[in-house]
């Protein structure tokens, strides 16, 4: 954590919570601080820092995979009026949560 180029040490804009299965790609960390102005920037920051996450979060067309839910605090970003362009503030939390579903048929 002594990297002087790492401004995250001084300015932690917001936190992204990582679900258990994706911690393989974040060196086991369950939450990642990122500096970003929008939801989309935050996700880009995350995959830049942890490239292994990219294919798990985004489909080939660059859109979030259908089963990957991203919540800004308690709101699904798909239902925010500005979607990924939604501005974020330092107290915001983004949570990545893959869907839990199934059925016997």
């Amino acid at each position, binding site marked *: 954590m002594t990297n002087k180029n790492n401004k995250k040490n001084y300015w932690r804009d917001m936190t992204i*919570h990582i679900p*258990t*299965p994706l911690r393989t790609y974040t060196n086991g960390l369950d939450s990642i601080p990122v500096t970003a102005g929008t939801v989309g920037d935050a996700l880009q920051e995350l995959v830049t820092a942890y490239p292994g996450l990219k294919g798990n979060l985004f489909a080939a067309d660059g859109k979030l995979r259908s089963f990957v839910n991203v919540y800004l605090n308690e709101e699904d970003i798909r239902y925010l009026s500005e979607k990924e362009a939604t501005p974020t503030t330092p107290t915001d939390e983004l949570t990545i949560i893959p869907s*839990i*579903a*199934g059925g*016997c048929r």
Partner: protein
Amino acid sequence: MLRIQFSDYEALREHGRQTYPHECCGVLLGRSVDGVNEVEEIVEAGNTRTDSAHNRYNIAPVELIRIQRQARAKSLDIVGFYHSHPDHPAQWSATDIAEAHWLGCSYVITKVADGKPDVTNSFLLRGTGEEDKFFEDEPIEILVAVGASK
């Protein structure tokens, strides 16, 4: 391997009785240690698939976020999920594997026959991603607490 207290094991089976003929679902909180998913607590969740609750389940992401937050406060992680198969074998279905995305987590399935919990099995979701994921039969170790009053 899945390691779970007898009381939690009974509770998740009982949940299947309560929701019968609909599928129940819930979350297993605990720790993953050396390939063993150790359950410390189970949390019942609502099934949002009211359109087809007899053969489908889905946990609302916002409910999951709250569960995950509670878990974090206790230094626990989500280590698995459970659901029931009303009058259907305790085996994963094509829908179950298609909609399973939590690699490394245990998926516990209980057959509920005529309203009574029957066989319970656990399946570990393995692989590195969507392309190669698969379910592996997973042994369940049931712990009986020493000095338990019932």
